[in-house]
């Protein structure tokens, strides 16, 4: 490998030092003169009508500068997402516990608390829908606009399902359910809004999607999009939890700022954040699979229900991804998948790493294991039997052409994990130990990279790159850095396109002012989309420089020009240093700034029949896990977890491994620890002493394994990978629990109490 190249090398992250030293600037670090704090007065019923609302006493609390209701909104009372059904502030009808009713700006948090106590409200309670079952039965209609309590439904049908089940040797039918998952980002939601010159608004905050926030603020204030600038601050984790809801946070800060003419900071406490911000949808799944006796998956029927909460927000998109991936990375010629996003009187659910897919993978990959046992086939073998190969067809009829790594992840992972040898070792361990039983399990998955067909107009990306006269390069993109390492990875990509040192490449703060709407930073798309946008802009700049060199007679027209080792070469011969060239170009008024516009290949998916190419390309993962169950307490502990992941090319292997480790830990949390407890629609586990995420003591040995299968359209062959690590952990652990105890759990999280009940009811 060329030593001077950066792609493929684990360089230290650009923002590593400042983060380790604690000098990164977060939203809460912003101090502006006259800054006010924001607080929100929220509903304390799940469903009801506001009869009377009195804010006058609250306004008189010393230090309080504004108390606002929906009547004070100059624009539209709306949080724009997909269907536009969610108001920022309740007008009359309350639809979930904790829904915002009034906003307060004050000089101190104490004054906010006092003002909240002084708000007078009379609410007439109405029937409420808490479970998916109640929603399906239409116990109450959550929002009249969705008369069946269904926000969105999808149906995919392909092949002769009836025949497949008739001809099957084995049919497995089960019901699965999954609970919420809370993002637990270290930094809670935070925004600062302030007036700028000429009626402009500046927003500074923690987020994934500055362009969503821009639209939210412009909508609520009723002003032009061009008058709102959104600036990304250092963002302390997001995981999907800062995709759509930061618009709410920013709208609140902006509205209060608009009314008070002062800068306003709104930062949620952990308790408020867990109670009212988005989460992973709880799900209910009916999954029926048909197999031949040699283990081939012949047919699948799935009914997939998501508990969306009171507003549709991102449910249409979350559900779609789940439906598309419902079968897993397997060929299956007969499928019927029905997906429903159900309304309930609870906090709206949204995006979370994996986006509606971890739930359905839990069901599908448990089914695979059940089949393997019934057919007497090794669990890894049955996955090998069915896994995609080149030319195979997905559930939506998409023919897979390129970069299909599923079989590689199974093969490599199995070998590293020592699947067979481990099995023998565990048998010996279990024979010796009365109270501890070990087991192993595997699970595979595939992941459509980027937004896919349902992303519509958002499938695009822009980059702005400039070269300074000292030869340093600055780039701006529309996707965000939220801790995942995008600044570093894109800097590596840019450095290699210019053949310069990564030290001389500088990412500029993400802001809506530099580039045009590039879609959201979700769906593992930043490297792919912004990486390609950088490539295009870099090519333009290089072409400007080459033209200049030709004009000046430095190189000949038509000869092979290379940018590498901080130098320019003509057919292998050194010509000039990059710095020197930059200075020359500057002196000669060469255009040293270029913006690009990248559009990924088009998808052909048709929502009417659920057929067509859903995503441009897929990434693949197989997890292998060993667990130990304590038969005294029925608790499960992870001993080791190997994840073999194929995502084209690892631009920075250490950062990719970091993503794998972090996602795996979240997956372990989702599987074993994280259990949201509610009373009706009120969330009780609203801090980290009741909502338990795994600690360093709970995760066992983690081993990320990177498998590379470059994808032609990706920057340097990269696809996308940020979400995969979390997604197929739960079924692997569930399968391992079965292998240890012969007890199967069908509900997530895999609770010790549920396992205890299985033992009791044997």
């Amino acid at each position: 490998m060329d030593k001077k190249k950066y792609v493929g090398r684990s360089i230290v992250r650009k923002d590593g030092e400042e983060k380790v030293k604690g000098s990164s600037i977060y939203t809460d670090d912003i101090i502006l003169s006259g800054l006010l704090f924001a607080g929100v007065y929220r509903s304390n019923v799940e469903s009801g009508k506001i009869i009377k609302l009195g804010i006058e006493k609250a306004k008189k609390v010393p230090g309080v500068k504004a108390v606002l209701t929906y009547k004070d909104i100059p624009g539209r009372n709306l949080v724009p997402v997909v269907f536009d059904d969610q108001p920022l502030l309740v007008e009359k009808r309350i639809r979930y516990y904790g829904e915002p009713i009034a906003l307060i700006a004050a000089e101190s948090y104490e004054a906010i608390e006092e003002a909240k106590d002084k708000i007078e409200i009379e609410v007439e309670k109405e029937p409420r829908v808490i479970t998916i079952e109640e929603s399906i039965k239409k116990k109450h209609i959550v929002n009249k606009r969705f008369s069946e309590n269904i926000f969105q439904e999808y149906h995919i049908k392909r092949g002769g399902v009836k025949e497949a089940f008739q001809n099957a040797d084995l049919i497995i039918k089960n019901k699965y359910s999954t609970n919420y998952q809370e993002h637990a980002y270290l930094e809670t939601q935070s925004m600062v809004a302030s007036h700028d010159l000429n009626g402009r608004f500046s927003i500074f905050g923690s987020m994934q999607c500055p362009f969503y926030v821009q639209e939210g603020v412009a909508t609520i204030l009723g002003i032009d999009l061009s008058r709102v600038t959104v600036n990304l601050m250092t963002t302390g984790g997001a995981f999907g939890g800062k995709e759509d809801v930061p618009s709410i946070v920013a709208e609140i800060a902006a509205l209060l700022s608009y009314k008070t003419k002062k800068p306003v900071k709104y930062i949620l406490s952990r308790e408020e954040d867990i109670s009212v911000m988005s989460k992973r949808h709880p799900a209910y799944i009916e999954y029926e699979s048909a197999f031949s006796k040699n283990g081939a998956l012949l047919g699948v029927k799935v009914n997939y229900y998501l508990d969306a909460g009171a507003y549709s927000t991102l449910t249409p998109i979350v559900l779609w991804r789940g439906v598309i991936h419902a079968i897993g990375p397997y060929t299956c010629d007969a499928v019927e998948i029905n997906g429903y996003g159900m309304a309930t009187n609870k906090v709206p659910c949204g995006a979370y790493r994996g986006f509606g897919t971890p739930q359905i993978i839990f069901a599908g990959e448990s089914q695979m294991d059940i089949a393997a046992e019934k057919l007497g086939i090794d669990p890894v073998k049955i996955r090998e039997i069915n896994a995609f190969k080149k030319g195979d067809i997905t559930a939506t009829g998409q023919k897979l052409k390129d970069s299909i790594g599923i079989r590689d992840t199974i093969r490599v992972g199995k070998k590293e994990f020592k699947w067979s040898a481990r099995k023998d070792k565990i048998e010996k361990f279990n024979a010796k130990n009365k109270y501890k039983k070990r087991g192993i399990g595997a699970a595979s998955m595939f992941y459509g990279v980027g937004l896919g067909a349902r992303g519509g107009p958002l499938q695009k990306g822009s980059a702005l790159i400039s070269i300074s006269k000292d030869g340093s390069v600055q780039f701006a993109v529309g996707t965000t850095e939220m801790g995942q390492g995008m600044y570093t990875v894109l800097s590596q990509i840019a450095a290699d396109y210019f053949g310069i040192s990564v030290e001389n490449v500088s990412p500029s703060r993400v802001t809506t002012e530099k580039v045009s709407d590039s879609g959201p930073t979700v769906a593992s798309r930043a490297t792919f989309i912004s990486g390609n946008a950088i490539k295009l802009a870099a090519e333009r700049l290089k072409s400007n420089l080459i033209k200049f060199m030709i004009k000046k007679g430095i190189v000949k027209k038509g000869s092979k020009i290379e940018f590498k080792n901080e130098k320019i070469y003509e057919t292998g011969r050194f010509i000039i240093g990059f710095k020197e060239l930059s200075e020359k170009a500057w002196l000669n008024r060469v255009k040293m700034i270029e913006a690009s516009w990248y559009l990924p290949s088009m998808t052909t998916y048709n929502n009417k029949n659920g057929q067509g190419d859903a995503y441009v390309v897929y990434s693949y993962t197989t997890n292998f896990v060993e667990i130990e169950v304590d038969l005294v307490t029925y608790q499960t502990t992870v001993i080791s977890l190997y994840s073999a992941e194929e995502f084209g090319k690892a631009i920075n292997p250490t950062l990719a491994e970091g993503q794998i480790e972090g996602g795996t830990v979240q997956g372990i949390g989702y599987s074993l620890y994280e259990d949201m407890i509610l009373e009706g629609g009120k969330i009780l586990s609203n801090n980290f002493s009741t909502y338990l995420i795994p600690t360093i003591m709970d995760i066992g040995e983690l081993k990320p394994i990177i498998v590379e299968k470059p994808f032609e359209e990706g920057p340097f062959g990269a696809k996308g990978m940020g979400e995969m690590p979390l997604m197929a952990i739960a079924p692997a652990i569930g399968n391992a629990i079965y292998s240890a105890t012969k007890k199967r759990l069908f509900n997530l999280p895999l609770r010790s109490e549920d396992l205890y009940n299985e033992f009791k009811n044997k």
Partner: protein
Amino acid sequence: MNNIFINVNNLNDLLTAKNEYGKKAKILAGGTDLVVRMKNKMMDPEVIISIRKVDELKGIHSKKNDLIIGSLTTHSEIEENSSIKKNYYPLFQAVYSLGSPQIRNLGTIGGNIGNASPSGDTIPPLYIMDAKIKLMSKNGERIVDIKNFFKGPGKTILKDDEIIHSIIIPKGRWTKKISGFYKVGKRNALAIGVVSVAWIIKEDTIRFSFGGVSPTISTTEIKKNANKKKVEKEVLKAISPIDDIRGSKNYRRDVILNIVEKIKNDNP
């Protein structure tokens, strides 16, 4: 509310302050319970007396017949004490698994007792080791058996002017071989116990104390050769578990029974 914060520098000032403010005042040791409660608005004392500089309440002292642990001794200090690790093994295990390093550096044994939670980790070991608690006030001192100290969850016999001075453990050799502490938390760190069990073998009997399964710690003694039925009967007599956010009554009961059985099996 605007709390009055008083920083006392020695035992005498502490006793004087507590005498003066009595019921209105709460003592702040490590604050890992008190501050959490204040934040959650479960408590809002008029006066807070910080005792963190009261050296007389710190440290572990070996006397002729007793081991004395000052109430302001942190869990980390207990964890690092070699004599406790060797001869008071259940207490070592309890502090070793308590909270996290940060909590152990701040939290004190006096605070753990003063908090009187049914799942306070140091309490079951202190029960089976027959610990006593020395209480002090401006007007004198008294020594009570730990079994008589707790009245219910969060309730103790402490009088308004009294403080916990120290914990007195009769000298013993409760080594790793013959004693232990078993905590069932929902994860391996920073988890309040769902149930906990401390145990000591004395000749042909095993003494048990149970946390998290009754309003205060409960205890029982079981003969090593008792049969399963007998064991079950004795244990169920001692405990009265309830359903809560951390676990059901039945789960708690059966896990306690499993632990007892395992300890019996491991120590034939």
